[in-house]
């Protein structure tokens, strides 16, 4: 039996996913940093709610280069969110998720089912069935998806208690390419929404938080910054700023100017 899906946005600042509280609404990826030390410093500077990790063949050049990563993970002591990056079939996803659950000792999984190697766009046609299988196997699924309303709704229908639509293709740093669709998702879905992929600037993250999104997951925007540690801190501040702005109830945009300074008593003014 799945846990109840939240029906209202929480007023408290804690991010609540699958009944668990996270003090930060920033989720941070761990790839592409210049060094493990810079990664560790960036995590310390941004205090993310979770960090994403992955699994690759032991003995490959990738795992050889990551030989100290396990110890670094334990030292950082931040909740981990394993991903199924690189998976192109539902079975690959399910098997990878089960392996991740054993290695990382967590039921959390960032579901990535890739449909196109150039855009790394999710395979939306098989994403929902894959999410359902993982949910039934006891995983807490955070699905990486597109901004398609129907796909997102179907993910919720099969038990996903949050969805993570992309802003733009992974690693492109373009920011939200389809604000209309993302805002529509916020309007129509009551589950937590986290933008995942394609953010490049803290202002991008701030914007989606201002629209009412519950969090932001990003990696490349920090890792490839000239100063990843400072950029990680900037993103943390931006996510907080956007969230605070959303909760503060921003003024509605208007097309005509309205003077801020009172008109009565304007010097030199005379009736014409």
């Amino acid at each position, binding site marked *: 039996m799945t846990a109840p899906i939240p029906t209202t946005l929480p007023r408290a600042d804690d991010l609540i996913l699958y009944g668990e509280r996270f003090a930060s609404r920033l989720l941070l990826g*761990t790839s592409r940093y210049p060094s493990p030390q810079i990664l560790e410093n960036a995590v310390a500077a941004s205090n993310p709610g979770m960090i994403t990790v*992955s699994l690759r063949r032991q003995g490959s050049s990738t795992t050889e280069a*990551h030989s100290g990563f396990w110890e670094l993970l334990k030292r950082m002591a931040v909740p981990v969110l394993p991903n199924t*990056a690189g998976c192109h079939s539902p079975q690959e996803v399910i*098997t990878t998720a089960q*392996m991740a659950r054993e290695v990382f000792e967590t039921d959390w999984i960032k579901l990535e089912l890739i449909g196109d190697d150039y855009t790394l766009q999710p395979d939306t046609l098989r994403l929902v069935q894959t999410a359902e299988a993982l949910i039934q196997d006891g995983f807490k699924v955070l699905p990486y998806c597109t901004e398609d309303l129907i796909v997102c709704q179907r993910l919720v229908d099969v038990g996903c208690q949050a969805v993570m639509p992309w802003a733009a293709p992974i690693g492109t740093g373009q920011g939200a390419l389809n604000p209309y669709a993302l805002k529509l998702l916020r309007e129509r879905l009551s589950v937590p929404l986290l933008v995942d992929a394609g953010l490049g600037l803290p202002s991008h993250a701030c914007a989606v938080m201002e629209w009412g999104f519950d969090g932001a997951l990003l990696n490349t925007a920090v890792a490839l910054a000239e100063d990843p540690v400072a950029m990680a801190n900037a993103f943390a501040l931006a996510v907080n700023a956007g969230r605070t702005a959303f909760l503060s109830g921003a003024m509605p945009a208007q097309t005509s100017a309205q003077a801020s300074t009172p008109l009565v008593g304007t010097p030199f003014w005379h009736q014409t």
Partner: protein
Amino acid sequence: MRVIINQVVHEIPSSSKLADALAAIDAKPPYAVAINLQFIPKAQYAARELQENDQIEVIAPVTGG
């Protein structure tokens, strides 16, 4: 017996268990294993029998986005 471990062909004794194959590649924890796209819990390593041409994946933690 021919098995493929992480896309590399290995010849191992015909009565080998999964644990034997892992020892053959000097697998070091932490890692997880799948055979022919099926996850194998570590509690089964010692008992799991291998078949000719089994595709074994041994994967370890790395950074991810």
